[in-house]
């Protein structure tokens, strides 16, 4: 038996022994997963038990080094663990930007002290993180950010405003970009900084979206004192850190939407359509125009998923990754928008509900998902920015 198979057997047994039965089949969607943190709410006490059991074994961050609370698994082993989880219909023990964004960034750019301080808390789900990048005047032009950090002894004093900080109202710490040298070229005066959201001078205001949800906040910073040791990477060298993290974020968003477009919705578009549309004598969707749109969307999704697979296979085979993350981000998010637009076209008048009578829960959720999806091509770097990146980095077109 190959080593990996032995590992797989062992981890499957461990899962069977440790996973609470009440979590089997639990939803895995963003809003319903376990994010942890000081303000964590447990919709089921077993969630906490499952988190602790996994954290104990390093399985909240399977590939991180054991020294920092990770599992020290190989990529292959981590994949086997995720597959066994899926097989057992179990949710991941923990999700969030600690695991997907700041953790990998600290592993790459953090010093030893930072790693030892922050990574174990992420792995145990004790601290929830949020991202302070954008500002009202710095969206696509992220490097145009104006939040100032002025050195005062062994602290930086922060003043400014961040926007689009996801779940800042639920987070404990924020990683952010600040301007430490206002006289340098704009990319060169930026520093990457961590701070506790409980620091005096930090206030947070949720932003209500057109979908009715408020996943984002504004964060106002007034004379916020942050220890100098919280600088990640070099002072004025934050842009390098930021770009690496953005690539992570793009990949994460692309994966999320590729996954959703693929198998996330169990029935698929054509199954969904059967609930709304007439069938012809042969049992096919009678509306040929919608049938074609459905086929096109399903096919584009398959081609997209094959492309993400191809990138992974190439990476495994030792080919250096290119600038795929921009392509995946722009294509994956536009695909998700198209998928939801096709669902709207299928549901027709039943897609128009906001709440209450005459629309079922799935219909109402679809409508809100559609509205929410319009942000997919904006957040994490707009489609326009991604296309610019592809043109420049992949195609080598001139500025």
């Amino acid at each position, binding site marked *: 038996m190959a080593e990996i198979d032995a590992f797989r057997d062992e981890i499957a047994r461990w899962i069977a022994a440790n996973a609470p039965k009440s979590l089997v089949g639990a939803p895995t969607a963003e809003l319903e997963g376990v994010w942890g943190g000081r303000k964590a709410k447990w919709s089921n006490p077993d969630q906490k038990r499952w988190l602790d059991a996994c954290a104990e074994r390093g399985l909240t961050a399977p590939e991180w080094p054991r020294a920092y609370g990770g599992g020290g698994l190989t990529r292959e082993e981590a994949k086997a663990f995720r597959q066994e989880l899926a097989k057992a219909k179990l949710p991941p023990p923990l999700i969030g930007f600690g695991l997907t964004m700041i953790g990998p960034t600290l592993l790459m750019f953090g010093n030893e002290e930072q790693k030892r301080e922050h990574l174990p808390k992420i792995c145990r789900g004790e601290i929830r993180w949020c991202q302070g990048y954008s500002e009202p005047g710095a969206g696509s032009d992220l490097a145009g950010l104006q939040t100032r950090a002025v050195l005062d002894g062994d602290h930086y004093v922060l003043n400014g405003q961040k926007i689009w900080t996801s779940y800042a109202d639920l987070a404990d710490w924020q990683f952010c970009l600040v301007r430490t040298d206002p006289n340098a070229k704009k990319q060169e005066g930026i520093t990457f900084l961590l701070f506790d959201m409980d620091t005096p001078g930090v206030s947070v205001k949720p932003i209500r979206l057109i979908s009715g949800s408020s996943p984002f906040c504004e964060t106002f910073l007034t004379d916020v004192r942050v220890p100098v040791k919280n600088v990640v990477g070099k002072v004025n060298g934050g842009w390098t850190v930021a770009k690496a993290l953005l690539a992570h974020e793009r990949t994460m968003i692309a994966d999320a939407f590729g996954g959703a477009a693929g198998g996330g919705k169990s029935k698929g578009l054509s199954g969904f359509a059967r609930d709304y549309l007439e069938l012809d004598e042969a049992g096919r969707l009678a509306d040929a125009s*919608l049938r074609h749109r459905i086929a096109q969307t399903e096919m584009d999704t398959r081609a997209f998923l094959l492309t993400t697979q191809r990138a992974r296979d190439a990476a495994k085979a030792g080919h250096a990754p290119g600038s795929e993350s921009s392509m995946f981000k722009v294509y994956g998010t536009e695909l998700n928008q198209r998928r939801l637009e096709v669902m709207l076209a299928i549901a027709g008048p039943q897609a128009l*509900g906001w709440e209450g009578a005459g629309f079922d829960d799935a219909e109402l959720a679809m409508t809100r998902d559609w509205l929410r999806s319009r942000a997919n091509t904006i*957040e994490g770097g707009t489609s326009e920015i991604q296309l610019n990146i592809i043109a420049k980095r992949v195609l080598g077109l001139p500025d």
Partner: protein
Amino acid sequence: MQLVLTEDQELLAKTAADWVREHSPVSRVRQLRDANDPLGFSRAHWKQMAELGWVGIPFDEAHGGAGMGFADLAVVLEALGRTLAPEPFFSTVLLAGQAIAQGGSDAHKQAWLPGVCAGEKILALAYQEPHSRYDLLRVATQARPEGGGFRLDGQKIQVLDAAAADALVVVARTGGGEHEEEGITLFLVPKDAPGLAVTPQTRIDHRAAALVRIDGVHVDAGAAIGGVGEGAPLLAQVVDRATAGLCAEMLGSMSQVFEDTVAYLKTRQQFGVPIGSFQALKHRAAKVYMEIELARSAVMAAVRALDENAADVAKLVSLAKARCSDAFVLAANEAVQMFGGVGMTDEYDVGFYIKRSRVAEMTFGDAAWHRERWARLGGY
């Protein structure tokens, strides 16, 4: 057919634009929504619109109307569409009102149209059913002879302004199968008729719609609008008129959201320049502009064809609706994308337009449905 506004229409357009600017900003829609207003519109505004003569535009002078045309009405609807005014033009004037005006008896007209034109009576047309989508012939609601009149049973969905209405025009089957043209009849039913139950629905545009349950509602023989069993052509004609009207409203909405977008492109700065200086956005804006221009021509042609009773009026209405659906959705989607993050916030108005774009798209048939209808009318 002249595709240009007459001097009178230019004047009407200006009056309407001025009134809208002063009395009907988008914030009014937001307030109605936030107040969870069950009416969904303002009776005071509706009364003003009646006093301005707009409500009576397509009705005979004999019944209190202005005896004007759809080309005139379109000018007003476009102005109202600019700020998404939710007053009951569709339910009262274009749907139920036109059903009575085109198919009703003198008694029906005398009883209802003067009140409609005065802004005092609200009417609604109950035609959509849970599985009917855009097919006007898919009517499952039954009307069986009973005591010299009819007994109605069935369910209707998304009936605009049903809660506010004084009476409903209900589409029911007096004969024929669920898809057949034969056997459809329109009945005028007072809102307080026993057996009629109205449950409000909340849609993304927050205009007032409702589920209507019809359980053994009795109407007398005189309630039928037009011939019994012969309502399908009347219904089609009424919906074509309402569709043309909706297109005019959509034209206003898409024009406004596009103008807002262009203004934003000129002011929002990124990378030290207005984002409207980026060529990719310029080209996309130019394409939205062209789509709106073509939509405008199609709408102008459709409403004039209605007024002139032109032979190809149904094709022109489908042309207008297909183009307006596509153009409004495009303009609204591009607006959100070009506004970026702030366009996704409830604080900005853009969200109201993108929501309305989909409701309007899926009212009276989406673009694909109207392309299919165009082909059918063209015999292919």
